[in-house]
């Protein structure tokens, strides 16, 4: 407790992830619309968003079911799209692994791209945060996102109007992620990791089940780790 004037970590999390509010609304609405167009009723659409809570995987599963793909293929594809969540889980473990089990379970349920990127950049920036403060911050970061994901899935399912294509909201997510990760490039190793990951992701774009992303991510992580080791060795020699 260094200072009483500091904002609570929970509220800081809410503030830091609030830019995503603008993005989550159109995407949740879109899922609601597409799901009802595919013949799902409101209960089914809501169950999908609440139980799975993963935009890209939900869109993938829905599309494959409409194409009458075998259930096993639907599941494998959608889970492959979500495989990055396991990498997020691993990357969060050094920071929140010491929290009580129920808190870790709660954090796991609400781990999405947005909460992960907001959380991990804060934890890296402020390595002295306590574990309870980190959990509070992480839960703060999902507070503006997850309830809106539910609410606007519902609105999309009931109202059924899409956002006009001319708004180019399709590109909102890439812009938000790029803006979030840019301040995380602190060393040459971070840059190397990103460059290799981008290059490999473009080369493996044709790999089925979105597995190119996982290959690219692993390649980038190896590049980052190797660059770090190389920089350390060079630093040690001087």
């Amino acid at each position, binding site marked *: 407790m260094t200072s009483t004037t500091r904002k609570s970590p929970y509220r800081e999390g809410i503030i830091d992830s609030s830019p995503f509010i603008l993005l989550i609304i159109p995407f949740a609405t879109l899922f609601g619309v597409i799901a009802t167009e595919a013949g799902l009723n409101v209960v089914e659409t809501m169950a999908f968003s609440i139980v799975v809570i993963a935009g890209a995987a939900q869109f993938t599963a829905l599309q494959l079911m409409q194409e009458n793909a075998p259930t096993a293929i639907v599941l494998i594809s959608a889970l492959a799209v979500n495989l990055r969540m396991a990498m997020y889980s691993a990357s969060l473990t050094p920071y929140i692994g010491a929290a009580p089990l129920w808190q870790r379970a709660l*954090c796991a349920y609400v781990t999405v791209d947005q909460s992960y990127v907001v959380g991990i*950049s804060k934890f890296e920036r402020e390595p002295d945060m306590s574990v309870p403060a980190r959990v509070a911050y992480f839960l703060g970061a999902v507070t503006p996102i997850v309830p809106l994901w539910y609410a606007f899935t519902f609105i999309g399912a009931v109202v059924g109007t899409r956002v006009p294509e001319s708004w180019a909201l399709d590109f909102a997510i890439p812009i938000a992620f790029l803006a979030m990760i840019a301040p995380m490039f602190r060393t040459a190793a971070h840059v190397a990791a990103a460059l*290799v*990951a981008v290059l490999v992701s473009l080369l493996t774009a044709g790999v089925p089940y979105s597995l190119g992303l996982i290959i690219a991510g692993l390649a980038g992580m190896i590049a980052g780790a190797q660059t770090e080791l190389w920089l350390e060795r060079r630093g040690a020699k001087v």
Partner: protein
Amino acid sequence: MIETSTLWTVIIVLGIGSFGLRFVFTGLVGSRAMPDWLLRHLRYTAVAILPALVAPQVVWHVATDGVFDIPRATAAVVTLGVGLVTKNVLMAVLSGALTLYGLLYLLG
């Protein structure tokens, strides 16, 4: 039409599977120490995965039928550049959005 039974199977199994993926390390490893080599790799998860997630969308965008799109690609470069220089997320988002809409208006 999607069969109701297929749909619920997918919702439930996908829900359990997605939770499992999100919980596998935080839940099972918990506070146990992870080896240095693994931590060294995990430090680069965010800066590797997120750019890799975005890159194909920047280069071949779905909204333009997979054709390289100048406004979107430029907006991506501007967002990243402003973010790198200013370290300010909001500035980066605003510059990116301004570039995207400006170019869509000028070129569209």
